[in-house]
């Protein structure tokens, strides 16, 4: 097999392995221009292969966790390659997997980014590949007039002679050409794949048990390890426990550099892994194992009451950020401030609404618990099988833990049984590698559900204090907003700038409303409970604060909540989304007594989203009857996948708003399984209607495509709270609605 690589143009790598292969870089959160800069052997993360047998394969570095991104990418590719979508096979790639040459840096799958960030690079790559194949056909036929050639489903036709050549027939010849610059794209008005509800490629394997998740990996000679952490965050192993006689090993596990958050400092031994011959026996041995832990000196301060007291203090009294200063937790950052002093302007307001909103820590609770399988041979190899959103970070981690070269390491990304941000973390991978290095045989590390709930990196708790003034005609003349919450980026070692943590303040600035003076602040809360990226991140917190307050202002101004928003939004895209949501949610149709609607609008990951939630009941029990969701993501690749993501996001948002809460006592998480973390069940599902604003007639590269995967979440909680106020007259300023709900067995 000839794998000589021709990198005549930096944007693409061309190889003749098995026919024709085009390698390129798909960006993640990089800007497209950065991705354009270089396609080198170590950077390429995506390959398009066209076999001499006419097979078409797209090898993807991103992870599939149910968001349909594999299908979305294949759908985009199909358009400009001019082949039927069904002909493209998608394969999970990864760093250092040979196919045909190393797929260098895999993509980290975060920020609702896979489809939107890759749209244009993928279309360009497909168009270049198509033109190379056509050039090869032109040489074969001996006609240099491009206009004489056309393509139908991967068959090139030369009109004057009637000659047809398949892509496979010219693949080997095309691989010797250099990739063209600016190959023309298929015009929007002739799209056959983009914008269509095509069936997802991963679904058949998900209805017959054949889809392999991290927990399903089985290797010859594999043993099973079960993790047992110190129940208290910040606690460490006091003495290595005695190995039970029926077990293979008990391995102390430490926090690897770069994987610890908050209380978890590098090298501290905060867990043991019990190793045995199957999951169940090993898990029982781990439960019975008596382990002595040393609690941290501040354990007594690691509880909900203290976290709330700290937040309340910082809501009024925090030390401002100093450029170049130490800026320890507890620092006040100015996110946005108008030239006019907003606090002073409050004095001129006819009416002031002063409200404090609180949100708890929330666990990810992916349906699949964390697990990772490692086959390590000292000095020779380390094969990792993980349900990871961060294959690229995993590779770097394994290099640092094992000292092996990248070429000796394979990161195999399995299907993810939910990712939700939790599987972007690599703590569980580092633990599995440590166990494999200790036992020197293939091992699968398993986290029981109780470990998964109690050792999460939670959505940050938050306390938001907003004080907003209305003038005599009901216009907002002063908006002050301060969010106090632990810093996700700070816990990852970032040095925060003058505005603070972008993950914490997103969706609290650049609001769409015409306000007078405004002051938006964020204070880093000092709680060391590990926090992380939870579906829609800061938007899920700030949209609750902002859109609850907007509703309170509407009530204070005695205005209809939809109309109040409408009159203060000027951007036509925002207005169109708001109007569409009101229409889809039947806003103007009167409801019978005992039913009410609430509305909210917001933004995340470059998309605009609005929801109308309709509920019934009373303060003690509510039923969610109907939810209307409208999104403007500029361009949707697969409307059926967008619908699935939005509806799923509504459920996720409902679970969190109604019941989601993790409590702490002495640094130990209190909710340990689903029985203490209620979620809605199928029979409680509201009717959810979705609408996607239409794709542009002619898409414009300079307009960012918005994310979809996380967008169902942020407006749900405020729209629900706003409906609840309308229904009951009670303003729910603290989430969740029902913090003590439990869930019975099936």
């Amino acid at each position, binding site marked *: 097999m000839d794998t000589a690589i021709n990198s005549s143009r930096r944007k693409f790598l061309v190889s003749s392995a098995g026919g024709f292969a085009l390698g390129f870089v798909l960006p993640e959160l990089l800007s497209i221009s950065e991705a354009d800069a270089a396609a080198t052997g170590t950077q390429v993360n995506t390959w398009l292969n066209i076999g001499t047998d006419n097979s078409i394969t797209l090898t993807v570095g991103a992870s599939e*966790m*149910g*968001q*349909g991104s594999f299908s979305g990418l294949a759908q985009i590719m199909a358009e400009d390659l001019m082949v039927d979508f069904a002909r493209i096979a998608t394969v999970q790639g990864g760093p250092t997997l040979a196919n045909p040459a190393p797929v260098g840096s895999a993509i980290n799958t975060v920020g609702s980014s896979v489809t939107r960030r890759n749209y244009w690079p993928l279309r360009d790559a497909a168009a270049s590949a198509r033109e190379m194949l056509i050039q090869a056909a032109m040489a074969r036929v001996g006609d240099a007039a491009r206009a004489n050639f056309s393509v139908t489903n991967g068959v090139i036709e030369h009109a004057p002679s009637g000659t047809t050549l398949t892509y496979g027939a010219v693949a080997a010849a095309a691989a010797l050409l250099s990739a063209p610059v600016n190959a023309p794209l298929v015009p929007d008005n002739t799209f056959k794949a983009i914008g269509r509800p095509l*069936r*997802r490629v*991963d*679904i*058949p394997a*998900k*209805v*017959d*048990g054949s889809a*392999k*998740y991290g*927990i*399903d990996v*089985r290797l010859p000679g594999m043993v*099973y390890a079960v993790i047992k952490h110190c129940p208290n965050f910040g606690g460490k192993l006091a003495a290595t426990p005695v190995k039970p006689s*029926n077990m293979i090993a008990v391995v102390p596990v430490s926090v690897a550099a770069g994987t610890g958050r908050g209380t978890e400092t590098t090298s501290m031994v905060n867990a043991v892994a019990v190793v045995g011959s*199957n*999951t*169940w*026996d090993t898990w029982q041995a781990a439960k019975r194992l008596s382990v002595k832990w040393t609690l941290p000196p501040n354990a007594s301060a690691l509880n909900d009451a203290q976290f709330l007291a700290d937040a309340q203090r910082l809501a009024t009294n925090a030390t401002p950020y100093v450029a170049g200063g130490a800026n320890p937790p507890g620092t006040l950052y100015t996110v946005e401030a108008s030239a006019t002093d907003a606090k002073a302007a409050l004095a001129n307001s006819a009416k002031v609404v002063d409200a404090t909103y609180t949100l708890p820590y929330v666990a990810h*609770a*992916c*349906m*699949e*618990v964390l697990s990772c399988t490692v086959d390590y041979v000292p000095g020779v190899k380390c094969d990792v099988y993980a349900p990871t959103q961060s294959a690229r970070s995993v590779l770097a981690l394994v290099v640092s833990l094992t000292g092996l070269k990248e070429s000796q390491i394979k990161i195999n990304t399995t*299907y*993810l*049984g*939910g*990712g939700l941000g939790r599987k972007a973390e690599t703590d569980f991978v580092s633990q599995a590698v440590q166990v494999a290095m200790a036992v020197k045989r293939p091992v699968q590390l398993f986290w*029981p*559900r109780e470990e998964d709930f109690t050792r999460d990196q939670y959505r940050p708790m938050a306390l938001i204090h907003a004080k907003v003034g209305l003038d005599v005609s009901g216009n907002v003349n002063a908006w002050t907003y301060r969010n106090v919450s632990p810093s996700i980026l700070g816990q990852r070692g970032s040095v925060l700038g003058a505005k603070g943590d972008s993950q914490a303040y997103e969706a609290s600035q650049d609001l769409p409303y015409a306000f007078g003076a405004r002051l938006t602040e964020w204070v880093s809360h000092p709680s060391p409970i590990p926090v992380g990226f939870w579906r829609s991140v800061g938007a899920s917190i700030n949209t609750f604060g902002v859109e609850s307050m907007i509703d309170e202002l509407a009530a204070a101004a005695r205005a209809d909540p939809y109309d109040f928003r409408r009159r203060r939004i000027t951007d036509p895209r925002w207005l169109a989304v708001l109007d569409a949501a009101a229409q889809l949610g039947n806003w103007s149709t009167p409801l019978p007594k005992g039913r009410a609607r609430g509305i909210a609008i917001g933004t995340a990951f470059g998309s605009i989203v609005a929801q109308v939630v309709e509920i019934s009941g009373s303060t003690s029990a509510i039923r969610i009857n109907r939810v209307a969701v409208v999104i403007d993501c500029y361009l949707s690749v697969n409307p*059926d996948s967008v619908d*699935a*993501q939005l*509806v*799923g*996001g*509504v*459920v*996720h948002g409902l*679970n969190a708003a109604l019941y989601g809460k993790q409590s702490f006592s002495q640094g130990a998480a209190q909710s340990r*399984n*689903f*029985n203490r973390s209620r*979620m*809605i*069940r*199928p*029979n409680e*599902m509201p009717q*959810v209607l979705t609408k996607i604003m239409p794709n542009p007639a002619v898409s414009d590269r300079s307009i960012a495509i918005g994310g979809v995967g996380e967008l169902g979440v942020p407006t749900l909680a405020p729209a629900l709270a706003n409906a609840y106020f309308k229904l009951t007259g009670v303003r729910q300023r603290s989430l969740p609605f029902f913090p003590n709900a439990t*869930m*019975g*067995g*099936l």
Partner: protein
Amino acid sequence: MPTYTLNVNGQNRTVTVSDGGMPLLWVLRDLLNLTGTKYGCGIEVCGACTVLVDGQREHSCVFDVSSAVGKNVVTIEGLSANRSHPAQKAWIDNQVPQCGYCQPGMIMTVAGAMKAGHRGSEIQSEVKNLCVCGTYQRIKQAISSL
């Protein structure tokens, strides 16, 4: 170390376990390499581990292997050849799964209800398994065709 013979997906399989209280879930997954049946909670709350034992829906995370001796166990792998069970077809037609992790349990729950002679809305009210991805709306649609 007791040894048991079970009939799983139409085949007799013999397993040796440390004690008869090992849940069927882990026997299937770790000893018989049938990983389609999933672990979600281990306490009979989520339904991800649902299998059929003599046609009845059982939560394999709490079902002792010793109790399955002499009975017919059907897992998602043995539900049909080529995804031909009506529930599997409906799941594909309605593009139900997202991450897919809960779906073997969902489909086996529905298959059990169908075996009991239940249909459509009757099944809808019986399916209570958790899906964190929130595919409930499409599950309802899929079931309505059964």
